[in-house]
């Protein structure tokens, strides 16, 4: 009796460990317990973003510590006991100029890399393929406009999770995308506003009905793996239940996936790509 319970325990432990290990090998972009920093960066945009964030972060830590330090000094030196007679100083031109000009300079130092990164992350320069993302209450649909594949992606409900799958993050049909490929992302929505956000890619874009928004990503081959994201704009009751899961695979694997997918998902309905081309050039009322 006792033995069998121990056996069971070990079995659970073992399967948990293998799940965790195998997860380690593939899953790159999922949140980790007690995480207090960014997830792994998979795209150059996210790499730069983290670098830039760290720059601001340390500047701001310095500011906060500076203020804290001044306050500590004040508490020690200028409490009523230590300093019974208050001064009457109320002006010091040098100081007043300093605490106006120095923040300006700090902000300039922040603004320059900020704007550079902004322009860099804006749009794909030479997109090699396009993924069209459409949001619905409460799932995503994806169209590979170059190869004409389209499918929906739904969250796997809790009671159907297989071991190793992540609650609230895993989906029935993951998006599969090739590494080393500059991918243009086009997004829109069928109903309310949602937001397609995958942290490791540095992509976070509202999907707005009536509009087509654009973003882009490229994942180098050494970052092959699975990346998770969640809908990030309140979209109604199941806002928490429309995750995003992306498999980044090698170009070769992608080709074989494509071949499979074409039979699995079938082709787009005929008019869809036309709709898209029109929408890109000039979104108009008819495009909806």
């Amino acid at each position, binding site marked *: 009796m006792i033995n069998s319970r121990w056996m069971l325990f070990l079995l659970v432990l073992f399967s948990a460990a293998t799940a965790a290990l195998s997860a380690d090998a593939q899953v790159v972009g999922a949140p980790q317990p007690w995480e207090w920093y960014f997830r792994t960066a998979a795209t150059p945009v996210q790499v730069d973003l983290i670098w830039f964030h760290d720059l601001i972060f340390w500047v701001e830590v310095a500011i906060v510590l500076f203020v804290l330090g001044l306050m500590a000094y004040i508490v020690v030196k200028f409490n009523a006991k230590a300093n019974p007679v208050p001064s009457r100083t109320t002006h010091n031109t040098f100081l007043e100029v300093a605490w106006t000009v120095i923040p300006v300079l700090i902000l300039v130092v922040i603004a320059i890399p900020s704007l550079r990164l902004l322009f860099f992350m804006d749009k794909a320069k030479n997109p090699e393929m396009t993924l069209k993302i459409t949001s619905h209450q409460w799932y995503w649909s994806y169209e590979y406009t170059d190869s004409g594949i389209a499918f929906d992606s739904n969250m796997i409900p809790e009671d159907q999770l297989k071991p190793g799958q992540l609650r609230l993050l895993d989906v029935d049909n993951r998006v599969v995308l090739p590494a080393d490929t500059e991918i243009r992302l086009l997004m829109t929505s069928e109903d309310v506003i949602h937001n397609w956000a995958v942290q490791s890619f540095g992509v976070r874009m509202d999907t707005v009905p*009536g*509009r087509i928004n654009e973003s882009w990503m490229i994942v180098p081959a050494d970052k092959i793996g699975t990346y998770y994201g969640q809908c990030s704009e309140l979209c109604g009751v199941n806002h928490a239940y429309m995750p995003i899961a992306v498999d980044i695979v090698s170009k070769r694997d992608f080709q074989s996936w494509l071949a499979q997918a074409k039979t699995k998902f079938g082709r787009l309905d005929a008019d869809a790509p036309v709709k898209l081309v029109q929408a890109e*050039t*000039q*979104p*108009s*009322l*008819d495009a909806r």
Partner: protein
Amino acid sequence: MATQAQKTHPYHLSEPSALPLFGSIAVLVTAVGAVVFMHTGFYLGLVAGFVLLILMFIAWWRLVISEANNGVDHTEVVKTGLRIGMLLFIASEVMFFFAFFWGWFHSSLPILNNVAGMWPNNDIEPMGASGIPMVNTLILLTSSVTVTVAHHALVEGDRKTATNWTGITAVLGVIFLIIQAYEYWHLVNHQFGLKDGIYPSTFYLATGFHGFHVLVGTTFLIVCYFRLRAGHFTPSAHIGFEAAAWYWHFVDVVWLFLYINVYWWGSSAFGHLKPLVQ
């Protein structure tokens, strides 16, 4: 409260009043009535709310008028305060219209809104600038002059002229409203209704709220007309009239913006935007 003899400051402290509470209840009834009306079509609550609100306004303004006339409460300082208050109120009204003009430009200029490849939407024939709107522009411009004439007469102590020209201004306001009502009737029957998309939405709400302000301004002028007749205003004390005149000018300026942007530019320039859609 300090009686007059004891009063040691130039301010007007009101006695406690039931009107604010009454008015707020009226607002509550109106709001609940409005929601119920919009969802069920049952309109009596809404009507009751409006009736209560109107009662509140009548009682409140009567009270203010009696204070203005008692010769004690409205000192110079108090009058300055009332002027400042009126100007601030008009400033807030300007910001209210700002929202609707923003809506107009947001939905018509492709630069602000990549949805609007086509304007007006759905091949709607926009309201032109000539004809009715032109007539109404002339009416409002004229009324701006007449109210100024009345004001000058009042300052110069010519009560009779002031009364007459105030009356004329109010009549012009009424005519404007009648013509606008006709314009709406015509548009709804021949060109576009409120539900026909974004162009009618912006058009009707912007011009409609302006029309409502004309109604308020006209009411204000009518009150002033009767107060003039009753001899409430003197060359030096006529805050009520001044406020009505300011309000009227404000309504006038809003109209000029509407006329230039919505009627004129909206019907000519946007014609050329249409081909942008392909």
